[in-house]
């Protein structure tokens, strides 16, 4: 025997459903896209992929036409693991190879080096080990650019931006495509973001 008390509840439920269903069709007809969001390092991984794509290394940096691009990551977890997702991505004929927790002696084999802000605090001289090599260095702090780092990330209203130190890029004999430079904040000697 159904309890008599629930009757009022049933009527109410039905009314609610009709009312809310009406609202649903009114409101849901007008669907707008929400802003895309992502975890910092996953988005950075996306950027770095394009940095590599739009950079040309001097011919002597690679043994052969299809030898891999070595991407060294000087960062702690979980950033390192996320950046590792670029492993095996193809850029033209080259495959990306990721090396984590770069030791000083491993640096010569790198084509790309990412240094997290925390890692740089711990080992501020990491860039000096790579001076004059055709290395695309990517960092996260202002001092990184001043020390000769080529690309550095910064944030603007929770959106990622990047700055390119053209002088440092030239010294490293790297050629960057206009697609990259047009999206970048360009630094010329003065390393401050306007």
């Amino acid at each position, binding site marked *: 025997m159904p309890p008599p008390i629930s009757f009022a509840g049933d009527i109410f439920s039905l009314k609610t459903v009709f009312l809310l269903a009406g609202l649903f069709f009114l409101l849901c007809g007008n669907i707008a896209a929400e802003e895309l969001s992502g975890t910092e390092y996953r988005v950075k991984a996306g950027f770095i992929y394009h940095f590599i794509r739009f950079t040309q290394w001097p011919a002597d940096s690679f043994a052969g036409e299809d030898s891999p691009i070595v991407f060294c990551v000087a960062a702690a977890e979980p950033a390192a693991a996320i950046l*590792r997702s670029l492993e095996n991505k193809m850029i033209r004929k080259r495959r990306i190879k990721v090396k984590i927790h770069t030791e000083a002696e491993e640096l010569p084999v790198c084509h790309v080096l990412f240094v997290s802000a925390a890692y740089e605090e711990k080992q501020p001289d990491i860039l000096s080990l790579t001076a004059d090599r055709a290395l695309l260095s990517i960092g996260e702090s202002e001092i990184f650019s001043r020390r000769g780092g080529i690309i550095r990330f910064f944030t603007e209203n929770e959106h990622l931006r990047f700055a390119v130190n053209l002088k440092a890029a030239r010294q490293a004999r790297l050629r960057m495509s206009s697609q990259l430079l047009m999206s970048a904040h360009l630094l010329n000697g003065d390393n401050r973001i306007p």
Partner: protein
Amino acid sequence: MNCVPYTVPGRGIISAVFPHPFFLLCLLYLLLISPPLSASLWEEDSGIDFTALSLEELKNVKITSASKTPEKLSDIPAAVFVVTRDDIRRSGATSIPEALRLAPGVQVARISATEWAVNIRGLNELFSNKLLVLVDGRSVYTHVYSGVFWDIQDTVLEDIERIEIIRGPGAALWGANAVNGVISIITRHAQKTRGFQFSALGGNEEGAGSIRYGDRTARGTYYRIYAKYFSRGSLLENDRDIRNDPSKGDWRSGRLGFRADRSGERNRNRVSLQGEIYSSRFQNEISRTVPEFPWTALEKEVSRAWGGHLLSRWEHRFSETSETALQFYYDHYDKDFDGSNVQAHTLDLDFQHRLESFAGHELIWGTDLRYIRDHFQDRPDIRVEPNRDGQYFYSLFLQDKIRLLPQELFLTLGAKFEHNSYTGWEIQPSARILWSVAARHSLWAALSRAVRVPSRVENAGVLDTYVFPSENRDAAAPLPIRIRGSSGLDAESLLAWEIGYRFQSAENFWFAMTAYYHDYDHLLDYRYDENPLCTEDDTVCAGLPLIYANNTGGESYGIEMTADWQVFPFWRVQAAYTFLETATEYNRDREDPLIAALRQGSNPRNQFSLRSSLDMGRDWELDIWFRYVDRLSDSDVDEYISLDIRLAWQIASRAELSLVGQNLLEPDHAEFSSLKVERSYYCKVLCYF
């Protein structure tokens, strides 16, 4: 492989990781990386391949970042389970206690339309008075009767990020009353709840609707505001003669709330503010003793409750190795219960500091100050004397996680020192050890002590009730019983021994098993009141006067097993089995069958749950959930098997239409009392824009 790490806000050490419907992504991710398997995706937010976006598109992606190093589930030396937002969505649960059925080792039984018995490793007891429940760090455990008023705990379920369940004592970190377990409900960060969300649900048992709007202000503060309303019917009562089970119905509840979050530069400071007000009412029948046949009279009344809270939290990060959290909240409720009414105000200030300044040590310490002021309305059969009281609780805890062997062996030592106005200082220490035997296998063991502080009713209440001495109720007048609280009580204590094992295959399989032995002492029970406080014409006092006393011990042991298998990227199966055996010590007063009968209550010895989540193409989801719950021997409730089925259709990934049938196998079944839960179905629309 751990794809989604979790951290309890402010309780930095506990976090967990689970396979997830975004498992496909995780699998891909796994294939891309080689060991060591320490990767974390951090967020469940999107399965987007950001390398496929152009630079300009990437510049338009808003970034989210977390600062704390999350611990993996396999790194926690405790029986932890996490119910994710997606689990809740796919379960078809429409309330928080129903969602808790998803967690292994949690016994959820519906007592009436508005009450649930929620237990973890429960001893033979009616209410789950040894279980601490937190919502975003705010305790919803009431000091009135040591338990949770589940009927006033609710929120927009879609905005719950996850529910973390710790089985076994969590007292070293959470403090008193976290004896048999801790349930921590964590709502979503306001950054994740932007835009409109609208849900409407209607069925034969309930109707509900919620609306939420979230956005970001020009100054970078994220916020959301929400409103929710529901109406639920009563349970089926097949035997109207049962006097102690008033049927409750026509339950209506509404709430309004907000949450705002703001992060400073590089996430060094994070501030969160949230608040809510709610109101709830239902029809209640209360049976009162009357002096002539049939000795009881049913009174209908409307049971009302309203309340609200305001919580603020400030997290500050000094460096990667040192961070603090300061939290303050005010909570108020005014609630009718059992024909009486209580108003309570709670103020709580909590501070925590985590630091890893010493190599091999992760230290967490904290302090908490809580003040509760209450006012009870006297009714003839429930009184609390004095009816107004203020209580202070203050505590200090310290925990050190020591790395004995790097990546392999960890020892966690902790203790909480807590002072309460009833039993004074309580010390609750714990020692836990975790051993990563091999890459995917870990073992842990723990020994801990926890206490439950007597409730306000146990301390100062006077309850008048009655029992019918014989089966034939017409024959004799009921025997009046008066149960009196005692101010001389000690805290109930528990010494818990636990061992656990976890296995996680690289790709798609996860298994955990825990065995435990709980040894209780100073349990509260009744004994004859040798010195009853009676007035001249007190008829109740002439019956059986009882008083609370710490005169019982008890033990329980059990096994909890859970497995999670992503069979295919589109099909996931989860199973859980719980075995529980309890016994209370011999106690002289229990020889009296009346006393024994008053204290009875029991938990199912065996529980089994099997859940299948199937994605059919991109747009359809089919979820089937099968549960077996053993009989409750002491309360004469039969075993039952329930089957829930949910079919959902995703419309353009912005809306979801679902049809849910619950308890489909039988027309009705009892779970705790003579009240029966009926077969039910509902239809729900959910949309975001």
